[in-house]
């Protein structure tokens, strides 16, 4: 029997990006806030000191910062006619664990979605006709527009101090930036990062072929910066230990470097770490959340009553907690009815590797969001009329690292081990470069999340089951994008080149990205969404999922974090400006 704690105004489940942003704004608004986080407390000073933060074996191979499958995992299958099995080693994607969540171990790529992405189905239907879309594709318009979200993208970028070059300032095109991006109300908070030789050569080749390369927007800062919360960040040292690592130089944006120092000073905020929320509790009507029940490390259960519940866990676990708590109608792929778990999507990535024998590329001078990119083949920036697919992605030369264990490029035909392999890695390291595409993943009727009928977690709750595979539309898209990228790669005059378009089926044992989206989709219609346009549950008005990637109706050709952060600010405003004045359904 859970022991009941004194009631709070707000309980926040998970203290990552969205949890920390919401906690800060609601505590600043005077509310009494408690955040419950299943992982440990983590802080730059004590957990990522630069004296040992760059430990590839500990963090990148042994995955020190990540969720352990024994703690929580999910089952996976490609198709409904298969039996899903538990993921016993996270590999294809890596959910975070602990305070800061995925905001600690991300690379820092800080993209906005395109204006047309926000009205995807309407836009594609208008331009190409409904017959262009596969019958089982379940993409839908977002319930917010780019114009509405722009000020919130701006706020998240200013929180992070994002480095970049605007391509569109209030509708006026800017040289050197992304000409395809939506309008921006202001320039990036800090100027672009310096580029390495590989990215510079790519940009020259892309320009020669008529494309418009620009520096990738990066929350690994090009110069020191003080954010609106008064927190100071440092200049990136290009050490190349971003993804999978905490940043000890205070230069990669994270809840630790951007929010927590100010949040933890607020006397009306408490963080309860190493405590896992078991379920969201509802009152007898099922229309109102009364708080949460969580279990601490000693196994003791606690009930934390609250007026408002904010579900801020990683996308996949937002869906699981909603399913376990029985909030919203689970999705049934056979009938197409129900919403919870619907429209799970991912990301369709591919690469082209090149060897430039006569160039010394120093790949270790790198940062997570380094690089020069083109956006010519993203979203609907190019004519899809005769291509047989929709969607796209950005592509380019982004050197995230040159770490010694995992960066071992070799020419084609090199043995996989032994003296010849050693010789080849030594000879190739300084001359190899990987170009990549970051493609969209649209949603489909047969890609969804539900509770596994067989397997349970350590707390006796059903594991979540993922059913997902790449569809022809995405594989065609990836083939097309990879061909375009290979054309540019060829213009770099490589000694050797290999193109790796994405091939099916989806393999959860090979790392691709941790951009798991959908399952608690936001929308204008309760028949096809779990949340309304304010990320508020249609069924339980005092429950919000403020912008985790589980609210995306489908995934676009960009990294999700900037949109996640923007939606967190958007929801914070909705709660403080609308909901607190008149608690109830906002739509």
């Amino acid at each position, binding site marked *: 029997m859970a022991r009941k704690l004194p009631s709070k105004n707000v309980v926040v489940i998970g203290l990552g990006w969205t949890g920390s942003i919401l906690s800060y704004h609601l505590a600043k608004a005077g509310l009494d806030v408690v955040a419950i986080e299943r992982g440990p407390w983590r802080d730059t*000073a*004590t957990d990522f000191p*630069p004296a040992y933060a760059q430990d590839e074996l500990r963090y990148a191979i042994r995955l020190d910062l990540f969720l352990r499958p024994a703690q929580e995992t999910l089952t996976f299958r490609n198709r409904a006619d298969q039996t899903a099995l538990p993921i016993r080693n996270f590999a294809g994607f890596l959910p975070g664990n602990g305070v800061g969540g995925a905001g600690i171990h991300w690379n820092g790529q800080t993209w906005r979605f395109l204006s047309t992405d926000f009205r995807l189905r309407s836009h594609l239907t208008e331009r190409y006709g409904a017959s262009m879309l596969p019958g089982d594709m379940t993409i839908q318009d977002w319930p917010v527009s780019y114009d509405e979200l722009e000020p919130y993208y701006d706020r998240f970028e200013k929180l992070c101090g994002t480095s970049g070059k605007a391509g569109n300032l209030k509708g006026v095109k800017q040289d050197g930036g992304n000409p395809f991006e939506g309008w921006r109300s202001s320039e990036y908070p800090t100027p672009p990062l310096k580029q390495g030789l590989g990215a510079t050569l790519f940009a020259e080749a892309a320009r020669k072929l008529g494309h418009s390369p620009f520096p990738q927007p990066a929350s690994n800062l090009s110069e020191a910066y003080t954010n609106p919360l*008064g*927190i*100071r960040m*440092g200049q990136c*040292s290009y*050490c190349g230990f971003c993804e999978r690592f905490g940043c000890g130089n205070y230069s990669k944006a994270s809840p630790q470097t951007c929010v927590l120092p100010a949040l933890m*000073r607020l006397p009306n905020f408490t963080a309860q770490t190493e405590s896992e929320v078991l379920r969201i509790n509802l009152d007898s009507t099922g229309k109102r959340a009364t708080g949460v029940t969580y279990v601490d490390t000693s196994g003791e259960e606690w009930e934390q009553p609250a007026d408002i519940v904010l579900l801020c866990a990683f996308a996949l676990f937002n869906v699981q907690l909603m399913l376990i708590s029985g909030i919203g109608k689970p999705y049934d792929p056979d009938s197409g009815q129900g919403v919870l778990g619907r429209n799970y999507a991912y990301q369709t990535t591919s690469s082209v590797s090149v060897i430039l024998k006569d160039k010394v590329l120093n790949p270790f001078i790198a940062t997570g969001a380094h690089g020069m990119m083109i956006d010519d083949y993203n979203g609907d920036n190019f004519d899809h009329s005769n291509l047989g697919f929709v969607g796209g992605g950005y592509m380019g030369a982004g050197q995230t690292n040159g770490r010694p264990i995992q960066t071992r490029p070799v020419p084609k035909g090199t043995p996989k081990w032994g003296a010849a392999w050693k010789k080849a890695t030594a000879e190739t390291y300084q001359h190899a470069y990987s170009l990549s595409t970051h493609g969209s993943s649209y949603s489909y009727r047969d890609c969804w999340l539900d509770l596994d009928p067989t397997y349970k977690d350590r707390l006796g709750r059903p594991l979540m089951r993922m059913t997902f595979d790449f569809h022809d539309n995405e594989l065609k898209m990836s083939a097309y994008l990879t061909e375009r990228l290979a054309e540019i790669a060829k213009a770099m005059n490589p000694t050797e080149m290999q193109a790796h378009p994405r091939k099916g089926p989806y393999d959860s044992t090979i790392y691709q990205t941790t951009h798991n989206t959908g399952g608690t989709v936001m929308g204008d219609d309760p028949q096809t969404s779990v949340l309304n346009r304010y990320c508020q549950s249609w069924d339980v008005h005092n429950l919000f999922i403020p912008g985790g990637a589980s609210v995306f109706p489908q995934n676009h050709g960009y990294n999700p974090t900037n949109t996640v952060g923007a939606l967190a600010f958007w929801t914070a405003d909705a709660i403080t400006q609308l909901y607190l004045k008149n608690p109830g359904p906002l739509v």
Partner: protein
Amino acid sequence: MYRSLALTVLSFAFITCAHAQGATQDFSRIERGRYLTTLSDCAGCHTAPGGKPFAGGVALQTPFGTLIAPNITPDTETGIGNWSDDEFVSALQEGRGRNGTRLYPAMPYTAYTKMTRDDILAIRAYLTTVTPVNHKVNANQLPFPFNIRLAMMVWNWLNFTPGRFVPDPHQSDEWNRGAYLVQGPGHCGTCHTPKTILNADKNDAPLAGATLQGWFAPNITANRYQGVGRWSKDDLIQYLKTGANNATLASGPMVEAVTHSTSRMKDADVAAIATYLLGIDQGGINKPAPLAADNPSMKAGAAIYKDACAPCHQDNGRGSAELFPRLAGSAIVQSDDPTTLGRIVLEGSRAVATSSAPTAPAMPAFDWRLDSDQVAAVLTYIRNSWGNAAPAVTGAAIAKQRTTLAHSR
């Protein structure tokens, strides 16, 4: 007129009361006392971390042994509730507490003696309003013979001159206010003034830097080499108000002084302190010639610096404002005594967090990664690069410090 009449009436009421508590309903006096308590940083020693306010408990490591700051809440049994006003004033001005008990100068009565009776009684008035806490503190934990309080009679006779602050009519009001705050309630010299063998202030070199509790509190005079003379008045104000400025961040024992005291001072008082400190220059500190770059220790230090330090402190030693201290031109880096430098490299350090500078960045510990000779080499390098100059640090000194720090953990 009305005001002075009111004051007279209040003073009268004060005198006629049997105990000090009688006059404590005067809001402005209590408020002034609260602020003077902040200026004097009473909480720094008398409030234990996580403990009840002013209930005592902070251990002070002196060269002679440990003293625990006592309970100064108005509890009559374990605090100072039974003290008379005269006893309270005597404790601060003369170093003699209830019934004439002699205090140890870890209680900075050598500074508080500069304070006016009126200011001290305002503090007293404020302290009578805090929650009484029944918490017995065994203050005197010194070994024999230092535990004999009567010994302080001799110490005081040798080292202590009671007396109020006397303004200098040739200086501005602001300078005089600063002088009063620094010499009196702020008791800056308690840490920053060099000490004699008897641990008394060396009066010929006030605020020129001193070693205590395993830290070197740097020179805070306007000396451009080892002091804060390169800082503007605004730099110094920003440091005291926020704990961080373009050159450095407060860490070590100064964290507590910034947290409890300087960050809560009125702007005018911080400005006065800056004016006074930037007006002190004893001179007489000669900057030596730097060690040659081809000195073996310098070469080793340069390589270690590039590998371990440069990502934050930069190749040019300039650091990053309000985040990573600037080593070039730093007083701590060039101090004769490298105690603080060695300690920060060995065990790391965390800067203070204040509401206007909440970041609190940290220096990581390198004791596990660099041996004593390597630490000495990198310190020698930063003490003799970018225009810095200071004597080399020896591996033996770092090895000794390593042992001392290990024992103090």
